[in-house]
């Protein structure tokens, strides 16, 4: 308590820093988002409902959620495996591989989009093999999943990696000496310890995928009802000068993302509390 008071008294800049933060945050983020809700409220509730439950819009919600979910799931599995390999094994070039995991954060989405489209097009480097098997990747929901898997890749790796690194190995050794097999050790000892991190990474990748535009718009083909994602639909409305319609769909999407963000934060807060208590 004494420390608290002292901190207030001794260090300068509280008013300046928090004041500036609040003003800048309001001007750049809060007020613009408030205007979005305001614009969406300029149409009647019936109109709003009609816009956001239109057949084409509902199809895009379903597509966006379903492709994002599958992509996040793929990342949960392979991300955990990559984190495992990077933490537990030594091999030549490991540091470069470790740095490359972050490429999807650093590579602009439009670049990823055109590169993946070119590779997975029917005559592309990888797409031609799928084509030979009769599977189309680019311009189908499968292509969207490829793009979303790319952009979500670092999330699970980066949330599992530190947890796995700090994991005390003595429990694994104890289990091993007591005769547990490798898979038993993984399922009963390692997985429970890293599961919260996997789930956090999964949720972050999922949330990111829901709003993704740049990498998807090239590979998806943008066919209404089939391969049209929600962000693209917002742009379409905007290009038709249907500003209120665009705002209405954006509000639905925003509320969905906020709820998801809230759940992730709540979950992280709960697990860190549990961790601190132990």
């Amino acid at each position: 308590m004494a420390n608290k008071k002292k901190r207030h008294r001794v260090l300068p800049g509280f008013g300046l820093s928090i004041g500036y933060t609040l003003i800048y945050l309001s001007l750049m983020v809060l007020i613009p988002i408030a205007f979005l809700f305001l614009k969406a409220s300029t149409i009647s509730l019936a109109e709003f409902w009609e816009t956001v439950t239109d057949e084409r819009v509902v199809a895009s919600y379903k597509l966006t959620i379903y492709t994002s979910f599958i992509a996040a799931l793929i990342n949960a599995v392979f991300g955990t495996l990559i984190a495992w390999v990077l933490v537990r094994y030594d091999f030549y070039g490991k540091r470069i591989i470790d740095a490359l995991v972050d490429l999807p954060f650093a590579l602009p989405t439009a670049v990823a989009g055109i590169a993946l489209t070119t590779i997975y097009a029917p005559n592309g480097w990888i797409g031609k093999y799928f084509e030979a098997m009769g599977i189309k990747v680019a311009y189908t929901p499968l292509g969207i999943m490829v793009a979303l898997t790319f952009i979500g890749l670092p999330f699970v790796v980066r949330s599992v990696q530190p947890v796995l690194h700090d994991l005390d190995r003595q429990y694994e050794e104890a289990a091993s000496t007591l005769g547990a097999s490798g898979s038993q050790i993984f399922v009963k000892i390692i997985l429970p310890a890293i599961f919260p991190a996997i789930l956090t990474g999964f949720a972050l990748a999922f949330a990111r995928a829901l709003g993704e535009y740049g990498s998807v718009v090239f590979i998806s083909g943008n066919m209404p009802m089939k391969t049209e994602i929600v962000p693209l639909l917002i742009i379409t409305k905007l290009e038709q000068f249907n500003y209120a319609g665009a705002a209405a769909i954006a509000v639905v999407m925003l509320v969905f993302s906020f709820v998801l963000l809230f759940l992730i934060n709540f979950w992280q807060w709960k697990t860190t509390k549990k961790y601190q208590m132990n």
Partner: protein
Amino acid sequence: MIVQELREKNIKTNTEPGLLKKWVLITIALGFLGLFILVPLIAVFSEGLNKGIELYFASLTERDALSAIKLTLLTAAITIPVNTIFGVLAAWGITKFNFRGKNILITLIDIPFAVSPVIAGLVFVLMFGSQGVLGPFLEANEIKIIFAVPGIILATIFVTFPFVVRELLPIMEEQGTEEEQAAITLGASGWQMFFRVTLPNIKWGLLYGVILCNARAMGEFGAVSVVSGHIRGLTNTIPLHVEILYNEYNFTAAFAAASLLALLAILTLILKSLVEWKTRKH
């Protein structure tokens, strides 16, 4: 004796089947990363260079490409200082003082991470566009924000808003307030304390945040695409220039421009690794 036996058994379980498992897992991990990360990266350069090095450089030095490069640099040059100043001030206030509503403030700062880039662009169109709230006022005063450079800069500031402050928060929280308190007690002014004590302590974290902020600022596509209006030579950044060329089936030029951004991404990763290595050493 028993311990000895157990240890031998333990060593045994870690040998041959363990070694096989190790290499199978490494192969799967590298295969996945190769397929999803290395192949696209190689594709960018190979497609950009497939009609020869001369065409590659010609497509990077034509007028529209140069103006896109200029606009991208200008956007980053404004966005980074603005978000860095905010990031340092916000992190200072949040980590060095106790006040109510701190967690709410942190959550609010995180909002741009949760917002789709397209929505980030949309909010500025709704504010400053011709049909927007401030539209009539701006038109009367002949100020153009949407479909012009200011809109691009605003949208970029929005999407990169949390980058610097997010990197600084954990570092400054961990460092506590003792060093700063000592400086102030010994008679340092606020600015002396900041430049001699705080800044040296956070410089690597700050640099890290700036690197990430820069990568996103130069590469942002969705938000910028909504507000730019795609006017060639005027409101095209490099990512938008890539999109236009690609949609015109001018693939070689599109990938040549894209390769600039890919180089930026590689440079970002190298700098990021260097900073991580530096901070680990400290």
